[in-house]
C-alpha cells in the first residue's frame, strides 16, 4: 500500500479526496508533510502545540490544562485513602412504576417541531431522547439537534429562579410571589399588552395566550410569533401564488425528480427529519432487481454547500440570488422553449419569463445550458411526479418571494400541485408570523404605544440585526418581562426574567401538522425553581380576577387549576368525542401513545389549488449580475441552527457534516476565489458589507461558486452561558431589513486579508486515509448494467482468499454485524450525537479537537470526487468495524481489547492501561483515547445526563464503539425472560435507532434471513480495506448516483495508474 504514495512519473490525484490539499503533488511527495500527517498522537500538552489562537484571547487552553492537572494530582494523593463510604438512599414511598435499575419510557413531544419523543427515564431522570415510532412525522427517529436537547435540560447555566433586572444586564434574584405581585400590579395598570413568542406548535398555549390577552385591558393586547429562521418568503410566495399563506407539505417520497433551489430540506429546512425519511424511500436499491432499479434524481442549485446539496445527483453552485434566474430559465425552457403546460399561452407568464432564456441565464450564472435543458426535460418527463422547492436563509435575497413564486409556478405548471405539493396539509412547523408583524410591533414600541411586552421563548436582540431597532425600541416599553431559560441577550434587557421549564419538565401539546396532535408530559420534576410560562399566565389571570381588575371578559381559564388541567380541559373540548366519563381513559391512552390521530394523518386529502398567473408579475426583469461583486450568503448549520442551543457542548463539538468544523463559524470560500484573493485555510480575513464588518477565519470549501462566500448564523452569542458565549462571530449585522422582510443573502462584500491566522478545529484531516481504498461509488446507469460492478470498481477493495494463521472463530449463538447504506446516508450526523448521548462520550473542547483528540465514536467521513469547484460528495459513517481478525486485539499487552463469542471486538476499560498500541494498529482509526478526565468538565446537574448503563471512562483509557453492548445485553435479558431468541430488528444500537433514513442496519449475521445478512450478501456491499484480511463485521453499501455518466476517473483509485481523474475534473471547470 505504501508504495502508492511514492513519487510517480505522471502525478494523478486520488479519485476521492478530503480536501483540495490532496490534489497537489506536494502533499504526497513532501517528506515533511508526510511525517506531519503520520503524527497520529500529539503527545505534548495542548498548550505547547503550535496553536495560533488569536481570537481566543482568554487563554482558556492553559487554564483548563492546569485545572485538569491539578485535579489529577489531587486524585492521585487520595488514592491511599480507605474506600469511600457510600450510602443507599431508598425512596420513602416508592412510586409504583419505578424499579431501580430498570428504565421507563415516556412519550412526549418536541415543542419546536411537534415531533414525537420517547424519553428514557432512569429513577426519575431522563437519560436519552428517542423518536416516538408511533409518531407519523419523525417515525421514531431524531436529528442531531433533537438528540442533543437532553443536555439543555441539565444545562448548569439555566436561570434557576425569578430575577428582576435593571435593563442593563444586572439581575437580582427574587421570589415568585414578589415577581407575580410586582408584575401583576403593572400589568393591570398597563393599557396595551404585547406578547412576543417564539414559534408555537401548541394549540393549547395559543388558546391560553388568547384568553390572557382577552382578559387584560379590554382585550387590547396582541400576540406576535417570531422565529429567527421563519419561512416568511414561503408564506408570502404561497399567498401570492395561491391566496393561502401556508407552508405546504412536500412529498419527497412521491417525487421522481426533485429540484431544490437552495432549500436545505435534508438539513435545516422546515421538517428535515421527516423529509429525510421520505426522500430516502426513493434512494433504496435492491441489487437482485437491478435491471428495474429506480431512484429519484435530485438537482440542487445553491450558493453554499449544504447537506441537501451534498446529497444531490447534480449540484449547481450559483451566486446567492441567482437561484431565481436558474428557476426561471428552467421555466422558460418548459413554457417558451417547449411550449408545454397550460400556461404556454399566458401573456403574463410569457412576459415574466421573457428575459430569462437559458442562453442569457447560462452566460450570467455559469450554469450550463445543457443542465437547464436537462432539468426541464426531467421535469416534463415526470409531470406530477416531481417536486420543486426553494427556501432557507441562503435564498433570502431581495428576490426571495419571486423565487418562491417561480417555484410555485413550476409546481403548478408541472401538475405537481396537489400531488407532491400538498397545500392543505398546513404543517404548523415554524410558520410563525411574518417579519412584517415584528416590524409593526417595533414601530409601536418605538412610538411608546406598548405598555407591557412579554417575551416568551424568543431572543430577538440576538437574532435580529441592530438595524431592525428592537433593542432601542425595548427601551421605550415601561414593562418588559422575559420568559426564558437563561439570561440571554434579550432577557438581560428586561425588567423581569421569569425562568421557564425545560420542555421535559412541562405539560403541553404539539401539532406539527394538520391532523397530527401529540401530548407533551413532564418526565422529571422541575430541577430549579422554574415555572411553566403557561402556569405564569394562569396565575396572572387568576390574580387579576381576584383583584377585580379584569375589565375584559373573564375567560374560563380563570377557573382552571394548573396548566395541566387546562391542557386536559382543552383536549376534552377539542379532541375527545363521546361521553365525558370516557375522557380519562382517552387521556391515558394518548399520554401512553404520545400522539393522537396518527393513523391517517399523512395520507392527506389533497386538492389542487389554482395558480394565479398574476403573481408572475412580481418576477423582476432579467438583469445581468455585476461580475466583480462577491456576494455573501448567511446559512444555518445542521447542529447550531439559529444559535438557540449555543450552550450545548454536544452541538458545539458536533463536526458540521460538510466542513467537519467544530466550535466556530468561518467564511466559506471556494478554492478558485481563495486562489484569486491569495488566502488560505485558516487565514483571518475581514469581511466588509454595507451594514457590517467582521473578522473571521477562512474555510476553503470546494463546491462554492467563484463569486460566492457564506457564513453560518447562530454564533457569536454574547450571553449564552459558559459554553456558548463568544464562540465564533455574530453575523446578524449583515442581515438587512428591506421592505418588511429580512434579507439574509446576496449582500455584496469586500474581503481583505489581515495577515493573522486562526486554526479552525476541523476534524476532516484527523485520521486521514492516505488514499487507501475506503469508499466506493457508481452511477445508476452502470449499476443497472451490471450490479456486481458496484463493489468491483476497485480490485484493491476485493479480497481473494488469503491464507491465515489465525484459527477461525466459532459463533454458536448470535454474531453481530452491521450494514450501512451509503446511498441513503445523508450525513446528517444524528448518529454521532445519538451515540454520544447513549455512550457517555465526553466533549473535549476546541483545543483538544485541534490536536485530534475528539472522542466521537462515530466519525462522519466526507469525501469529495470530481472538480474542486463542483465536487460530488459521499458521506461514510466510520466506527469500530469489529473485525474478525482485529489488529487491535493482537497488540494489546493486557488483553483489554478482546474478541467475544458474538463477534464483537470488546474494549474493557478497567483492564486498559493506555498503551495506545491498539489505536496505532487500527487501520480504520476509530479508537479514541482519553487524554484527560474529560468527565470532570461535566458540572453540577450535567452529571444527571450520564447513561447509568455505561461506564464513564477516566483518563488514560482507550474507548471505541461497542455496538452498544449495553443495549445488546438489555435486549437479550428481555428475550431470556420470555424464553426466546432475539427477533431480527428488535435490537437497535443508538445510531440505528435515531437514523432518519434507515441507513444503518444492525443484526445477527448468523441468521441468514436477518436484514443485515441479506444486505451483506447484496451486490452493492463492500467492506472497507478488505485487502487487509481483517474481516470487518460492518459492510457498506456502495453509493449510487443518479447520473447518466460514470463519474470521472471511475476505475482510477490510485494515482498514477490511470491519470485521468484530475484532468477530467479540470476539463469540467467553468461549465458545471
Amino acid at each position, binding site marked *: 500500500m505504501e508504495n502508492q504514495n511514492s513519487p510517480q512519473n505522471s502525478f494523478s490525484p486520488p479519485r476521492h479526496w478530503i480536501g483540495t490539499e490532496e490534489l497537489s503533488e506536494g502533499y504526497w511527495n513532501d517528506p515533511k508533510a508526510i511525517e506531519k500527517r503520520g503524527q497520529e498522537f500529539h503527545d505534548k500538552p495542548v498548550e505547547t502545540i503550535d496553536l495560533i489562537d488569536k481570537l481566543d484571547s482568554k487563554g482558556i487552553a492553559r487554564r483548563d490544562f492546569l485545572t485538569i492537572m491539578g485535579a489529577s494530582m489531587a486524585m492521585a494523593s487520595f488514592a491511599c485513602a480507605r474506600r469511600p463510604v457510600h450510602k*443507599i*438512599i431508598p425512596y420513602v414511598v416508592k412510586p409504583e412504576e419505578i424499579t431501580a*435499575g430498570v428504565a421507563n419510557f415516556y412519550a412526549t413531544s418536541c415543542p419546536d417541531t411537534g415531533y414525537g419523543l420517547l424519553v428514557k427515564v432512569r429513577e426519575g431522570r431522563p437519560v436519552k431522547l428517542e423518536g416516538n415510532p408511533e409518531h407519523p412525522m419523525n417515525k421514531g427517529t431524531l436529528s442531531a439537534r433533537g438528540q442533543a436537547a437532553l443536555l439543555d435540560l441539565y444545562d448548569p447555566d439555566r436561570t434557576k429562579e425569578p430575577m428582576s433586572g435593571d435593563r442593563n444586564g444586572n439581575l437580582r434574584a427574587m421570589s415568585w410571589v414578589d415577581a407575580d405581585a410586582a408584575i401583576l400590579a403593572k400589568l393591570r395598570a398597563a393599557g396595551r399588552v404585547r406578547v412576543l413568542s417564539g414559534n408555537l406548535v401548541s394549540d393549547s398555549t395559543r388558546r391560553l395566550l388568547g384568553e390572557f390577552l382577552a382578559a387584560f385591558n379590554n382585550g387590547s393586547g396582541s400576540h406576535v410569533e417570531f422565529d429567527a429562521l421563519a419561512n416568511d418568503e414561503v408564506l408570502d410566495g404561497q399567498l401570492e401564488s395561491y391566496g393561502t399563506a401556508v407552508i405546504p407539505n412536500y412529498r419527497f417520497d412521491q417525487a421522481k425528480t426533485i429540484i431544490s433551489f437552495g432549500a436545505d430540506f435534508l438539513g435545516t429546512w422546515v421538517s428535515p427529519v421527516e423529509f429525510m425519511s421520505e426522500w430516502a424511500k426513493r434512494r433504496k436499491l435492491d441489487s437482485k432487481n437491478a435491471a428495474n432499479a429506480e431512484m429519484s434524481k435530485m438537482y440542487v442549485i445553491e450558493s453554499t454547500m449544504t447537506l441537501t446539496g451534498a446529497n444531490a445527483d447534480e449540484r449547481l453552485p450559483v451566486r446567492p440570488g441567482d437561484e431565481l434566474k436558474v428557476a426561471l430559465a428552467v421555466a422558460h425552457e418548459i413554457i417558451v422553449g417547449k411550449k408545454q403546460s397550460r400556461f404556454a399561452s399566458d401573456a403574463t407568464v410569457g412576459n415574466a419569463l421573457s428575459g430569462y432564456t437559458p442562453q442569457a441565464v447560462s452566460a450570467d450564472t455559469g450554469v450550463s445550458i445543457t443542465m437547464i435543458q436537462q432539468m426541464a426535460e426531467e421535469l416534463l418527463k415526470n409531470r406530477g411526479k416531481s417536486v420543486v422547492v426553494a427556501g432557507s436563509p441562503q435564498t433570502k435575497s431581495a428576490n426571495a418571494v419571486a423565487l418562491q413564486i417561480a417555484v410555485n409556478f413550476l409546481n403548478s405548471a408541472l401538475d405537481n400541485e396537489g400531488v407532491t405539493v400538498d397545500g392543505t396539509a398546513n404543517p404548523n412547523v415554524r410558520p410563525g408570523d411574518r417579519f412584517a408583524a415584528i416590524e409593526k410591533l417595533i414601530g409601536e414600541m418605538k412610538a411608546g404605544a406598548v405598555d407591557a411586552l412579554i417575551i416568551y421563548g424568543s431572543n430577538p436582540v440576538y437574532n435580529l440585526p441592530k438595524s431592525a431597532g428592537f433593542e432601542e425600541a425595548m427601551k421605550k416599553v415601561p414593562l418588559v418581562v422575559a420568559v426564558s431559560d437563561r439570561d440571554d441577550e434579550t432577557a438581560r434587557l428586561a425588567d423581569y426574567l421569569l425562568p421557564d421549564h425545560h420542555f421535559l419538565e412541562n405539560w403541553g401539546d404539539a401539532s406539527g401538522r394538520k391532523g397530527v396532535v401529540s401530548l407533551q408530559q413532564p418526565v422529571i420534576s422541575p430541577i430549579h425553581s422554574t415555572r411553566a410560562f403557561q402556569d405564569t399566565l394562569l396565575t396572572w389571570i387568576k390574580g387579576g380576577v381576584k383583584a377585580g381588575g379584569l375589565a375584559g371578559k373573564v375567560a374560563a381559564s380563570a377557573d382552571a387549576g394548573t396548566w395541566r388541567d387546562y391542557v386536559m380541559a382543552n383536549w376534552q373540548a377539542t379532541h375527545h368525542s363521546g361521553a365525558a366519563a370516557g375522557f380519562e381513559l382517552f387521556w391515558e391512552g394518548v399520554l401512553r401513545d404520545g400522539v393522537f390521530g396518527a393513523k391517517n394523518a399523512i395520507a392527506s386529502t389533497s386538492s389542487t389549488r389554482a395558480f394565479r398567473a398574476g403573481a408572475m408579475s412580481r418576477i423582476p426583469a432579467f438583469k445581468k449580475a455585476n461580475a466583480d461583486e462577491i456576494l455573501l450568503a448567511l446559512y444555518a448549520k445542521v447542529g447550531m441552527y439559529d444559535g438557540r442551543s449555543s450552550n450545548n457542548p454536544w452541538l458545539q463539538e458536533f463536526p458540521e457534516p460538510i466542513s467537519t468544523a467544530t466550535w466556530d463559524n468561518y467564511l466559506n470560500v471556494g478554492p478558485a476565489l481563495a486562489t484569486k484573493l491569495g488566502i488560505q485555510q485558516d487565514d483571518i480575513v475581514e469581511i466588509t458589507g454595507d451594514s457590517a464588518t467582521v473578522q473571521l477565519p477562512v474555510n476553503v470549501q470546494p463546491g462554492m461558486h467563484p463569486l460566492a462566500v457564506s457564513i453560518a448564523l447562530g454564533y457569536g452569542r454574547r450571553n449564552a452561558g459558559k459554553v456558548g458565549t463568544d464562540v465564533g462571530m455574530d453575523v446578524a449585522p449583515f442581515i438587512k431589513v428591506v421592505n418588511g422582510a429580512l434579507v439574509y443573502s446576496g449582500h455584496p462584500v469586500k474581503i481583505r486579508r489581515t495577515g493573522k491566522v486562526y486554526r479552525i478545529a476541523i476534524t476532516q484531516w484527523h485520521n486521514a486515509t492516505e488514499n487507501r481504498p475506503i469508499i466506493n461509488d457508481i452511477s445508476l446507469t452502470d449499476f443497472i448494467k451490471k450490479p456486481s460492478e458496484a463493489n468491483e470498481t476497485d480490485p484493491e477493495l476485493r479480497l481473494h482468499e488469503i491464507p491465515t494463521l489465525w484459527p477461525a472463530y466459532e459463533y454458536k449463538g448470535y454474531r453481530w454485524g452491521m450494514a450501512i447504506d451509503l446511498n441513503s446516508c445523508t450525513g446528517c450526523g444524528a448518529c454521532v450525537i445519538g451515540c454520544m448521548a447513549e455512550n457517555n462520550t465526553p466533549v473535549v473542547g476546541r483545543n483538544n479537537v485541534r490536536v485530534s483528540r475528539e472522542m466521537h465514536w462515530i466519525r462522519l467521513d466526507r469525501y469529495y470526487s470530481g472538480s474542486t469547484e463542483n465536487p460530488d460528495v459521499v458521506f461514510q459513517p466510520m466506527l469500530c468495524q469489529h473485525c474478525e481478525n482485529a489488529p487491535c486485539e493482537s497488540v494489546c499487552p493486557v488483553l483489554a481489547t478482546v474478541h467475544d463469542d458474538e463477534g464483537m471486538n470488546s474494549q474493557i476499560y478497567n483492564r486498559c492501561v493506555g498503551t495506545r498500541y491498539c489505536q496505532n494498529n487500527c487501520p480504520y482509526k476509530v479508537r479514541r483515547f482519553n487524554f484527560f478526565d474529560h468527565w470532570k468538565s461535566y458540572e453540577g446537574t450535567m452529571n444527571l445526563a450520564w447513561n447509568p448503563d455505561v*461506564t464513564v471512562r477516566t483518563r488514560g483509557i482507550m474507548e471505541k464503539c*461497542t455496538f452498544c453492548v449495553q443495549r445488546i*445485553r438489555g435486549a437479550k*435479558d428481555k428475550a*431470556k425472560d420470555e424464553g426466546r431468541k432475539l427477533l431480527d430488528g428488535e435490537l437497535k444500537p443508538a445510531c440505528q435507532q435515531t437514523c432518519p433514513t434507515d441507513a444503518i442496519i444492525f443484526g445477527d449475521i448468523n441468521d441468514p434471513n436477518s436484514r443485515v445478512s441479506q444486505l451483506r450478501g447484496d451486490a452493492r456491499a463492500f467492506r472497507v480495506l478488505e485487502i487487509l484480511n481483517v474481516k470487518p463485521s460492518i459492510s457498506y453499501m456502495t453509493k449510487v448516483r443518479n447520473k447518466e455518466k460514470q463519474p470521472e476517473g471511475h476505475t482510477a483509485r490510485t494515482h498514477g495508474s490511470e491519470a485521468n481523474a484530475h484532468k477530467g475534473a479540470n476539463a469540467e471547470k467553468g461549465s458545471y
Partner: protein
Amino acid sequence: MNRSDSGRFKKIGILVGVVLLLGLGGAVAAVFPSASNEGYSPEQPIPYSHKLHAGTYKIQCQYCHSDVEKSKHANVPSVNVCMNCHSIVKTDSPYIQKIKKAYDENKPIEWVRIHELPDFVYFPHKRHVAKGVACQTCHGPIQEMERVYQYSPLTMGWCLDCHRGKTTPKEVVARVYPGVKDPKGLIAPHQCTTCHQ
C-alpha cells in the same frame, strides 16, 4: 578505587535495590490493599436484624428486596415497606419510631452500602436469581446475621470461579444443565462484556 571496592559497591547496590524493591512492594500493598472488602460490617442508622426477620420470623427475602427478580439491583426497601408491619408491630421501639418519623416527615433513611462493586461492573441480580442461585450463595448465612457483613470477596476471580464451574452450587448446575451429570468447563457466560460495558 580498587577492583574489590567496585565489587563491594556493586553488592551494596544490589542490596539497596532489593530493599527498595521490597519497600516498593510493601508500599504498593499498603496503598492498594486487596480489592475485596470481605467482612465489612458497618454500623447502620437502624440496627435492622436479618437474623430476627429472615431467620426467626422467616420472612421471604423478596418481601423487602422486591426488585431482585426484576432488576439488576436487589433494592433496599423503601420506608413504606417497613411501615407495612411496623405501623402496628413494636411501635414502642425507638428505632421503629425513627422509621415512623422518617415516614411522616418524608425523609429517606440513609443506609450504609456494604456490597459494592466497582462502577465498571454491571452485575444483574435478576439473571442469577432466575438461574436459581440462592441469596446465601453469595451473601452467606444472611438469616443468621444480626448485623450484615460482606460474606464473599466479590472479586472478579471469585465471580469467575463460579462461572467456570469450580464453585458453582450443585443445584444451580442441575437446574441450568438438566440431565447433564458433570458439565465440563465454562458453564456460565464469561465474556468480558458479560459484566463490563
